[in-house]
């Protein structure tokens, strides 16, 4: 596949084509101006070299019309580039509603992947072709960056924060996955691959490991095991706020502010509960820092997301009850 020099990197996502079209435009534009100015410099250098010591050129101090010309024309060109690029950029930030979700944790020096249905992988990510895939990225330690050149997608994985990216693969195959942000001594060994499969093969791969638990169900079990449930109950005048239907809603805080209950907020409330206390509650929750791993945090977040308003906490999680591999590769 990579015999000899590739003229351009492989395109294997819907986004790659959009980026490359812009690249070709920029290459043409860059080449045009480089050559234009290059020829002018060389031409002037030859034509206007000094031939005799007394030669005196005309004194020209400036020309408003000319200067306006070469202010306004570049302004127009950069406006075109800006709007075109903004379109490409926004499309990369608009995650399709029907995207399947994958959670990724970077750590030195590997990528740990959890599918919403519970399968886990390390340094590999299996996805179906033709289906949008949304990545939720975080890191256990330093900053990493999830980079798939063939998809033209790159996003930092930051500690204590969730970032998102998405792609839709267009060709089955195996593609390189790298860490693009320098993360320490063995940064260049942080290599993985994306395996893009036909949908049927992907379903078979999902079913391959035997029955398992979905991310939200795993989170629910943790919720019981860590005794979160003793305080976060829907019914009583509980010590902790109820979590049903919480996700995505604005939350009033004790200090008068409000925050939207997104993934990052829920994660922070588990590891640093005193950072943002909900109005009407005492800051009595202990921290779970060090007690739960980043993967378990993602499971808890998935569980909280799955809690619908006014439904009992034991309600069915939204994830499809597909049999999953329990013994994920370690």
């Amino acid at each position: 596949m990579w015999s000899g020099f590739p003229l351009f990197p492989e395109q294997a996502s819907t986004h790659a084509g959009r980026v490359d079209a812009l690249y070709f435009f920029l290459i043409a534009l860059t080449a045009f101006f480089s050559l234009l100015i290059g020829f002018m410099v060389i031409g002037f250098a030859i034509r206007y070299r000094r031939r005799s010591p007394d030669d005196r050129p005309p004194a020209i101090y400036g020309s408003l019309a000319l200067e306006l010309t070469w202010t306004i024309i570049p302004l127009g060109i950069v406006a075109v580039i800006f709007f075109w690029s903004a379109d490409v950029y926004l499309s990369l930030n608009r995650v399709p509603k029907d995207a399947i979700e994958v959670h990724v944790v970077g750590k030195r020096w590997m990528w740990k992947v959890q599918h919403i249905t519970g399968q886990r992988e390390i340094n590999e990510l299996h996805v179906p072709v033709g289906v949008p895939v949304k990545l939720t990225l975080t890191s256990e330690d330093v900053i990493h960056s999830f980079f798939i050149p063939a998809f033209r997608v790159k996003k930092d994985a930051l500690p204590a924060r969730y970032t998102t990216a998405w792609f839709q693969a267009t060709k089955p195959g195996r593609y390189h996955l790298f860490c693009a942000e320098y993360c320490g001594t063995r940064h260049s060994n942080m290599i993985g691959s994306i395996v893009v499969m036909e949908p049927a093969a992907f379903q078979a791969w999902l079913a391959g490991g035997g029955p398992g638990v979905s991310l939200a169900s795993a989170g629910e079990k943790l919720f019981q095991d860590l005794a979160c449930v003793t305080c976060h109950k829907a019914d009583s005048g509980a010590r902790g706020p109820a979590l049903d239907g919480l996700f995505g809603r604005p939350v009033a805080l004790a200090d008068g502010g409000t925050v939207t209950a997104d993934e990052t907020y829920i994660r922070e409330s588990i590891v640093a509960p005193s950072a943002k206390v909900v109005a009407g509650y005492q800051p009595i929750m202990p921290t779970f820092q060090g007690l739960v791993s980043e993967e378990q945090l993602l499971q808890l977040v998935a569980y909280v997301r799955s809690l619908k308003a006014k439904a009992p906490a034991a309600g069915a999680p939204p994830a499809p009850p597909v049999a999953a591999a329990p013994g994920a590769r370690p």
Partner: protein
Amino acid sequence: MATHAAHAEHAHAPQAFIWKYVFSKDHKVIGIQYYVTAMLMALVAGLLAMLIRVQLAWPEKDYTWLGKIFPMGYDVGGGFGVMRPEFYAMLFTMHGTIMVFFVLSTAPVSGFGNLLIPLQVGARDMAFPFLNGLSYWTFLPGCLVILASFFVESGAAAGGWTSYPPLSALKGAVPGSGTGQTMWIIGMVFFIASFTMGGLNFVTTILNLRTKGLSMFRLPLTMWAMFLVAILGLLAFPALVAACIMLVFDRHYGTSFFIPAQIALNNVPLLTQAGTPLHQGGSPLLWQHLFWFLGHPEVYILMLPALGFTSDILSTFSRRPIFGYKSMVLAMCGIGFLSFIVWGHHMFVSGMSPYLGMAFAVGTILIAVPSAVKVFNWLATLYRSRIRFTTPMLWAMGVISLFISGGLSGVWLAQAGPDIHLHDTMFVAAHFHLIMAGAALFGVFGATAYWFPKMFGRLMSEPLGKVHFWFTFITYYGTFFPMHYIGIAGHMRRIYDPYQYEFLKPLQPINELITMSALILGASQIIFFVNFFWSAFKGKKAGENPWEANGLEWTTQSPPPHGNWPGEIPEVHRWPYEYSNPDAPRDHVMQHEPAGAAAGH
């Protein structure tokens, strides 16, 4: 009478060697001290670059011989020498740090700024000579601390020149994150303190000590560049000092400015002995904002002096008034202003809101407009001129070339759409080496050849200078132009061994070509050092005005005496670009010549 008074006041130059040449308060001596120190630092940083390039081209070769020179850098067990990855990280970290701050901010700004400001504005010295001397003697310890950090047990800093936390904040993150990183911070604080003292002097001198008749719009463009650079430095560097101090607190005193809760290092959660979190609530992105709030103006601190030198040199040797002087000034002011509102373009992939990202993208791409104005004005200056191809003129045309080739790739990186794929790849390395490093370096070489008479009273050798230019010009492009291509192909920066990646293996021949070019580029600089030291002692004596230029610095002896003018400071009657005026007897009318000498502008 006034002549005598002025003369007497400045006749008392210190005579003892130590006060005249070491702890001097004379701006020319300080400028040369800065310049020479920066060039020696460039040798160190250049050597680091050579080691980086050798590793990227042939990581599989036996480096036992290099292991003998750098025992800390290579594993030589079993008779086969391999570079250690932590040594590679140290190389690119220290190459970037030294080049950006201790070479390319120092040589053009602190070096030529100090040398030229009093000479071009017509002052006896800088406004605060003692502060000026102090600034150099604050800079030098910074250099020494940075150099010493190579010799501490775990090696110099290895968190990248940007020193992103948590890598730089957690002492165990990489070997260099221990003592090496501490010394990096100390070195940077020394540097910034010295740069701030210099900046205060620059602004004060240019505003207050201009000679009679020298209005702001009669200043050479080099002076405008120095003025803007000093303002940029004074406004931007405090952000990095603040960040450095916060980093010290995070590293040593348990604060959490940059370190969030629930962070682990090497699989161990960071907890106190009681089991409570060691850190809580910090954000590593805060550092990125603070660093790039400095970092982006910083690249214009490197660039603007080179643009100023280029304008002055171009006008002198094409024997033409600079085309569109006022729009050149406005363009530089515009670039300086925009540089403060674009720092987020370094963080497009960090997960910032896309609307914020687009605001940064607008500001960034607007920089293309004043930059285009500058390029076309330079071209218009050359049009129908009479060019003298001296060494400084070649370097100035080299700056134009790099400003275009590096600037156009900036248009790619300015926008998040194309940048996301290119971010952290060799394309970025290609871009900034051409524009920021290359243009600044070529500007310094041009300025060295041009103002050498005002440093040492002699001219540099023209043949050696031209050979040096052509070798440097060709190999500079040979080194950095192919990096665009391997960057688009997905070759990342800061990777110790590219060929662990299956799809980068076909790119090895290109990396080999780049390295060979870089080695020739490095070796070519020997010509410069030979030329510099030979010419300083044995070069052809230069008269007052060897280039037939117009600025005030050309109205005094070469080198100028203590106090700059033996007699009274000349009065100014026009701008410094009065070349080829048809009504004048000569093809150039100097700034101090009385109005009768020509129809003034």
